[in-house]
């Protein structure tokens, strides 16, 4: 690993963190356009975050030291993940870029969120945490297995930076039932993990249907800014993973400038397509009832399991 490569990897991690509010803004804008509204500027999330950073923090008198630590733990886990996500270039900067570690860092995020929801003893937070716990029991195994399928399929071991290059290297032969099934499962996981419609509505507050927003209710000021940024980052990381691990064509595997330029264009198109898909989904279908969610999540789990079994059977 030479310095230019390291610089590129660090740059892509920084870029991922910096564009994440933009991705959220684009999804909101697309949604507004589909619903015949003008909508806020795509840069609105940056302004929101800046505003939140400057505001005062209100802390519940029932909250403990964890309440202040949790936003930092959440953002730390997402920064760690951003450093291990291939985005423009297939290599990653993180020395701990291991697929299993990736799943467990997601678990770390969730665990912190769940505890955060129960801080302060608000009824809404508890409800959000309880539902998040239910969803995570079904989501995380699906995530684990679908990502493991990739590593087993490519024979790349657990190193994230090897996966996309070996899929690209295999060419069209890589499009196997296992990849398609695992990709579909990952897609459902992405929507569920980021608590988008139909699993949850990220735009609502104070509805009895909410999961993710319920856990954020007690946060304000800087803490809320961190939590919001962490959620935006999580969505962006998932989109990048879908675009570079499950459908890696176009991602640069060499340091050639032309390959990198192509990769930037490719990942931009991929992310826009995914953003369009999410916006379309959120504009056309309604949120599910809470207890309908497990059916969908179990389907995702079954798909990922089938993907892995198909690796060995076919």
């Amino acid at each position: 690993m030479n310095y230019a490569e390291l610089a590129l990897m660090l740059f892509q991690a920084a870029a991922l963190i910096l564009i994440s509010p933009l991705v959220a803004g684009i999804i909101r804008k697309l949604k507004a356009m589909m619903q015949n509204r003008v909508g806020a500027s795509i840069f609105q999330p940056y302004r929101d975050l800046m505003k939140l950073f400057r505001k005062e923090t209100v802390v519940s008198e029932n909250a403990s030291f964890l309440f202040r630590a949790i936003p930092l733990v959440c953002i730390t886990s997402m920064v760690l993940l951003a450093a291990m996500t291939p985005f423009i270039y297939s290599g990653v900067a993180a020395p701990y870029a291991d697929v299993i570690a990736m799943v467990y860092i997601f678990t770390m995020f969730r665990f912190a969120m769940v505890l955060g929801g129960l801080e302060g003893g608000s009824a809404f937070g508890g409800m959000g945490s309880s539902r998040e716990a239910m969803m995570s029991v079904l989501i995380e195994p699906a995530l684990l297995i679908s990502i493991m399928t990739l590593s087993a399929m490519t024979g790349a071991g657990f190193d994230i930076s090897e996966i996309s290059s070996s899929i690209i290297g295999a060419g069209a032969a890589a499009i196997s039932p296992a990849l398609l099934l695992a990709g579909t499962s990952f897609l459902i996981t992405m929507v569920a993990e980021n608590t988008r419609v139909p699993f949850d509505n990220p735009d609502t507050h104070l509805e009895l249907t909410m999961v993710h927003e319920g856990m954020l209710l007690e946060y304000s000021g800087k803490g809320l800014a961190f939590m919001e940024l962490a959620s935006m980052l999580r969505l962006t990381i998932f989109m990048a993973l879908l675009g570079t691990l499950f459908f890696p064509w176009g991602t640069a595997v060499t340091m050639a400038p032309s390959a990198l330029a192509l990769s930037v264009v490719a990942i931009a198109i991929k992310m826009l397509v995914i953003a369009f898909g999410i916006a379309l989904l959120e504009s056309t279908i309604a949120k599910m009832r809470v207890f309908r969610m497990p059916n969908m999540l179990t389907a995702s789990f079954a798909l990922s399991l089938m993907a892995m079994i198909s690796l060995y059977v076919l």
Partner: protein
Amino acid sequence: MQLQDGALAALFFVAVFLPAVSGITLGMLFRSNRVANVVASLCIVSCMAGASTYFLWSAGVDLSYTLPLPSAAGQYILSIDQLSAAMISFSSVIFMLIVVHVVKSTSDSGCKYSALLNALFLACFSCMAADTALVLLMSWEMVTLVTFLLSRNGDNERARWLFFVIAHIGGLILICAFVYISSVAGTQVLSQWRNLGPTLGDLTSTALVLMIILGFGSKLGLIPFHAWMPDLYASAPIHTTALLSTVCSNVAILVLVKSIFSYIGVSPSMSWAAFAVIALAAATALWGAMESLVQKEPKKILAYSSMENMALVVLCLSLGMVYIGESPVLAKLILIAAVLHTMNHAVFKSLMLMTIDTVEDCTGETNIGKMGGLSKTLPILSMVAIVGVISMAAIPPTNGFVSEWLMIQSIMGADLESTGMSILMPLALAAVGICGMMMAASYARLYAFVFLGRPRSEGMKKPRPMKKGTILPMAVLALLCLGMGFFATVFMDVLTSGIEAVTGIPSDPGYRSVMSGEMLPLLLGITITVVLALLMWIFRKEKRKERKTRTWGCGERLDSNMQYSSIGFSQPLVKVFHPFYGDTSVVKESENKENKTLVMEFSEPFVKYLYKPVSAIVSILSERMGKIQTGNIQTYFGYMLVTLVVALLAVRLL
């Protein structure tokens, strides 16, 4: 040099046994509290001697000793190999920390209790160091007996006896297995049992392996032997359960590894048995995870968590049995994962049990539904507890994460020839994944409803301050949780050569050739710490920008019941997995039959549908049998005469 070695070994065994034996004697003779402390201190001295085992072993001292005492059933030999040395050292440290907590907390004190602690240490030590089947079986029996005596706590006779009976069913199976093996092997000396499989025959050795797994499984809580765990954990003194679930499990896993992989040896024909054990272990792990979600007492949550963790270890061992024929180096990795997880479990489980003991001691509350808000009143305890909880939930950078990470790696590393085995791997992975997440939810519930939110009862509002010094062993364990996470490779290296010696897997290629990211735990740990510290430093608290206020409750003033309850928290999961929980809502009528209440109750179906019918049948049979017991001495002479005549006839005719 030879003489000196022998003298050192003798000195070592004296250092281990003498304090503990004198502790037992003192404890039996006296009753005062001051003597109780002396007795416990003697146990700590023994533990320290035990902790030095590994260092003596690596200094090249031959740690073996034969008791010059003739016995009809065999010799009394103690001999310590590398794996045992590592386990003895580690378990002694855990044992010592628990005894320190006993002394400091004084909730389970008294001369008798401390004397029994000494006895338990000796039993565990000699079980791990045993070199003849006689010593092994005797000390295993001692472990059961002493824990049975240690678990006495007022009105818990049912739970104790259930444990006693189930542990003895396991013990009986073990005695049968070991006696049979020694009759075939022609010797009692365990270190001379080496790959007896071919001598025993395929079918017999498979049956023996299954018997040994079930025999130790009765202590580890494999289905259906787990029935004793929740009740005993809830009712026994907490230090007893801490020792039972950590040190005794270490003993069981160590002997299990040695029996399967060294004494009997794994042959390819055992794979179906290994599959059966994999299925059993996965079912146990899932059952433990599901049940732990709905328990009302923190101790029971930890009981089911022990069951789940030990099931994962057994799962790894049985996967190791599958791997060993195909890819020995992978088998080595999964065995390292198994033993490492056992050790990690010992650390975080003893930490959590001590935490819960402190909570119950300070507040007098045992129901999690009545707890809450302790992190405001006992902040240091809550900080120690959060380390234990994230470690149990396998969150990086703790030790729990490292062993689960290793497990998943070694499950995924399976690139086995036959498809039957390969299909199994995704299923094993799914089981580990689901269990892991369920347990994480359960631990979040445990921590949150004890420490977060608002207090739900009077005892929780004004807890008594912690007893002086109780935090010390807990803090050490919390540091161990982190240290064993950061420096996992050190522990893995120690275990590797021990496991190689036991299993006979060649040391080349090393386990690192099939493992990815050997430096990962350390790097990940450092990165997390650095990023977190950096962020904390950049965004350190600015007082003027922070305001304290009530929790928002739609304008309502929230009282202690207006927050999520622990049962409500796991309700969505109960609803999703409702077929496994069965009918949970029970209508209860009040005594004057005026009003009825709907309550949620989770009962163990294994007790209801397996143990109760069996015990009913046994009672009926023994009642029938009882009819021949007339109490009349003439009748008994008659029975004797009939027996004698029948026996003589049988001998003559056959």
